[in-house]
């Protein structure tokens, strides 16, 4: 069935739970304002089941109700894996055969972001979720620049090392830091490289929308729960396809 609705305890009941704060003193009017918001979100009927004053200026609400929206599953657009998932062995073999030299990957947390656990999970031998990281791949040369790397030094490292792919991680998202930094990064690469020659640009982090590649000027985005093999397979797929086997 491609048209679905939220399910509370009966098919089609459309029930959802919402919580939020309004900058308004706790009162009946505040409850009414919460209800108005719920209605605007498409919840009808909606019940304000909890409203709690937080000081004189704010009230916190929990609202339950039925949304009248339908979800059309056929219209869902997701970035599905469009490349074969390779084992390290297979990935190494393809690189050896087609590139005939190690694939060079430069990775970093850019901007002021210092959350390296995510990019390390992808790059370090130790890996993630039981899979070894890219350093484990014999045919991949990994340059992990670590945390808080400025965009100019990233570009410089990519150029010096002859990077085939650049991997950047962004975990801090407050005030859209991750979007600003990623855009700054891709712009710098566009400037630094002749058209068509820049390395593959890959961004990753738990709060990215994977479909925003075009807006951010990167080739691919990986979200929460990404595993090293997915990234390796993607890199192999994209870098070896460009250079057809001799």
């Amino acid at each position, binding site marked *: 069935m491609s048209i679905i609705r939220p*399910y*509370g*305890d*009966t*098919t089609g009941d459309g*029930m959802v*739970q919402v919580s939020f704060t309004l900058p308004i003193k706790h009162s009946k009017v505040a409850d009414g304002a919460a209800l108005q918001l719920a209605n605007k979100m498409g919840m009808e009927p909606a*019940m*304000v*089941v*909890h409203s*709690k004053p937080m000081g004189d200026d704010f009230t916190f609400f*929990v609202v*339950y109700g039925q949304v009248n929206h339908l979800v059309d599953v056929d219209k869902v657009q997701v970035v599905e894996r469009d490349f074969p998932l390779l084992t390290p062995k297979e990935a190494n073999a393809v690189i050896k055969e087609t590139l005939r030299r190690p694939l060079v990957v430069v990775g970093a947390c850019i901007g002021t972001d210092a959350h390296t656990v995510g990019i390390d999970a992808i790059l370090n031998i130790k890996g993630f979720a039981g899979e070894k990281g890219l350093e484990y791949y014999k045919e991949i040369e990994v340059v992990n620049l670590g945390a808080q790397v400025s965009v100019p030094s990233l570009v410089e490292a990519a150029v010096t090392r002859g990077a085939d792919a650049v991997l950047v991680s962004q975990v801090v998202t407050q005030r859209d830091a991750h979007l600003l930094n990623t855009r700054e990064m891709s712009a710098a690469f566009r400037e630094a490289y002749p058209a068509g020659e820049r390395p593959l640009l890959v961004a990753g982090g738990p709060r990215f929308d994977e479909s925003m590649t075009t807006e951010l000027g990167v080739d691919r985005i990986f979200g929460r729960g990404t595993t090293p093999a997915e990234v390796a397979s993607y890199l192999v797929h994209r870098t070896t396809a460009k250079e057809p086997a001799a």
Partner: protein
Amino acid sequence: MRLDLDPRTIAQARALAAKVGDPIVEMAKKHTTVAVERATLRLAGLAGADPDGTPWVNHLVDAVRADVGLEHGVALPVWQALAAHDNDLSRLAEEAAAGQVTFHLPEGAEAELAAKHAREAVGVGIARLDASRVERERMIAEIGDAPRKPWIYLIVATGDIYEDIPQAQAAAREGADIIAVIRSTGQSLLDYVPEGATREGFAGTYATQENFRLMRAALDETSRELGRYVRLTNYASGLCMPEIAALAGMERLDMMLNDSMYGILFRDINPVRTFVDQRLSRQIHARAGIIINTGEDNYLTTADAVEAAHTVTTSQLLNEYFAKEAGLEDWQLGLGHAFEINPDVPDSFRLELAHALLAKTIFPDAPLKWMPPTRHMTGDIFKGYLLDGFFNLAGAMTDQGILLVGMMTEAVVTPWISDRDLALQNVRYVMDAAGRLGEDFHPAPDGFIANRAREVLGESIDLLGKIIDEPNGLLDAIADGTFGLMKRPADAGKGLEGVAVKSEAYYNPASTILEGEE
């Protein structure tokens, strides 16, 4: 983990409970009810309903009653009449409903013959109870049992048996050891058991033989899939208590809500009616190997959980007495209690531990049923989720037998599928992370917890003493609002018209067999 309470004090409490309970048992023995008689007919194999939904057992009992009264029981008049109707109970019921039969009370040899036939017919039903019990034991041996205590007890309550089934299966897969199908509001006051698969209960699904069968079959399937036998629970409560017990026994339900006073207090059912119905229902449960769950938790939804803690203990002692009298064994006594102290009360969690340990200490061999917070749950689902976590912790620390899983949406809706999933996750975290914390938990012999437990036990003993001093004992206490603050006089309440004092000629093959008189 047990509290260091004086065993003599506990023995004293038990003796007082026996003294309170005994006159009630005597009274129960002297009466019968329409539900008792209908249950007998159900055990004899009479099922089904007329096109309007009135069960044949109701038609038949009503017809007998109209002709000869209820006081002799229906067995003799029915089996006397049956010979002339091809020995077909359904046909007899149909014709009786159409006014085509006149019933008589047989006497002498005729009565003996009728009794013999009745006994044989009811014996088939009792054999079905036995067979279900054997089948349950066989399945548990073959498939495996719940992996650990407490057993995780989850509720489904959509109102539609066909929505309940997948939800129950999902809950079992997520870790439930016991599934309870909550009944529709109002069923407890129906003086008949609805028929067939049902889809429109309010806040619960009707208890019917067919719904029992469907759900048990679905859970058998899931039990095999999971490699552990998932138990099924329903309610032997309300005006049809013994009938539902019979249906549950025959359809291999595993546990039943069955309290000696719940119907009186919370459904305004006549006390005599309840005590009479209760006795047969418990005899059936005893035979069918069903675990009963008592309803002391309910008191704390209307009375304060600290002030009324001793009424819970008192009621547990009474429930134990009545249960044992009816033939139930310790392992079948899911005595209820609950985590219902106002969370704003200082040391509320330690008070809960004291109450829970008291029960465990008095009833060490009973699988106590630990009920989650409901009354102080609010629309703040986050706070509720936390409270449920502490409820789970108290359950683990005090070694409860059956853990009814609390829902964060308690104050909002009947549980959603996600509520159950989140609730089970809560239980799992607490059990895995802190399940063995009991090892490090040693309330001082004269500390806050032990003293509180002693205080509650003392109050319970006082209360039992006071009840004994009333002219009409427990009936007066119930009339006074002692339990759950509800006042229920013995001569009022629903279903009183369905009660009769047994005559000299009274004969009921079901109780005869169940009491082992032959």
